[in-house]
């Protein structure tokens, strides 16, 4: 767990150091992609706690959900349904909270707090 926190901190530090900024046009796409990435990470943590973690599944899931999320928003923009990104946001938001709940319960189970 410490390694994961360190990795997150390292990513944030890298972002701060490299001073990258998303261009305005890409803002929505990357926003949804970030949500997808967060969801994938929570899913991975959950799976690892359950003992069903598979790195191939995780990596492919991470890549496809981020890319697909951005793609869905793009398509929505192109076909005039700009609100399509809301669907992605809602879906990923719900999944994030579900995964978070599962992780919490699994942690309790592991530490024997149940």
């Amino acid at each position, binding site marked *: 767990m410490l*390694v*994961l926190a*360190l*990795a*997150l*901190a*390292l*990513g*944030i*530090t*890298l*972002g*701060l150091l490299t*001073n*990258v*900024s*998303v*261009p*305005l046009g*890409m*803002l929505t796409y*990357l*926003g949804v*992609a*970030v949500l997808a*990435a*967060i969801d*994938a*990470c929570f899913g*991975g*943590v959950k799976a*690892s706690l359950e003992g069903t*973690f598979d*790195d191939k599944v*995780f*990596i492919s899931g*991470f890549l496809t959900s981020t890319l697909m999320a951005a793609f869905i928003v793009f398509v929505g923009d192109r076909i005039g349904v700009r609100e399509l990104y809301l669907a992605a946001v809602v879906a990923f938001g719900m999944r994030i909270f579900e995964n978070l709940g599962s992780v919490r319960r699994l942690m309790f189970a592991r530490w024997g707090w149940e």
Partner: protein
Amino acid sequence: MKVHHLPSRETFTHLKDASKKGLHASERAVGRSVNEARLMASLAVGLLLVGFLLVAQWRGAATFTRSLDRQSDQNLAIIIQEIAAENNALRGEIVRLQMRLMETGMESEDRSRVLNEAAKEMQAVRLVSGLDAVSGPGIVVAISDPERVLLPQDFVRLVHELRAGGAEAIAVNGTRVSATSGFAGGDGSIIINDVVFSRTYEVSVVGDPDNLAQALELPGGLRSTLLTFPGVNVEISPAEEVRVAAGLHGEFVYAQKVENP
């Protein structure tokens, strides 16, 4: 005879099982740690990416909120009003500064003009009062008086005739005849500005040579009068360049300037 009991088949099986078990356990442990490492590595990479993207997104969103696209119509109206007011104020400032610049320019122009005029006037006054050496076309009047018969009034008359002929500067033997100069003496010598001369006089005059010569050579004029005196000779020669020395600066002791006459 000692009978060697071979280990029974069960024992072997048992041993084999045990080793097998042990092997499996270590293998499993190795497999698990490898699995764990891969899990951690991939999750760590994922989280690293998430952190990086979060920061980038954060920055982009911050610029987006500041950008005008994001503002509501009301806010935009307020911003426009503020900018217009600022614009007006700045325009006023520009006009004010331009006026000040113009005023200053005119003031300095005025001042330099006044200074120029004052300098010109000063120059003229200095010339008229004989404070500066001058040169220019004119005539030289050489008067010889070996018998010492000339009187101061002859020179007064000479100077008057020359001034009537348009003389701008007059000097007698290098002594400037200015507005305050007078002729004194007698007994064959002339005193101008406290300098005593006798016998030979060279009068340098700057002015129109023809007019000056005419003023002296008029029939019944000064020249003919002087020539009637015994021994006196008068030579008038026009010159392209006559140099007249500067006079001394007189000090006024009694005269005071009258303000607002």
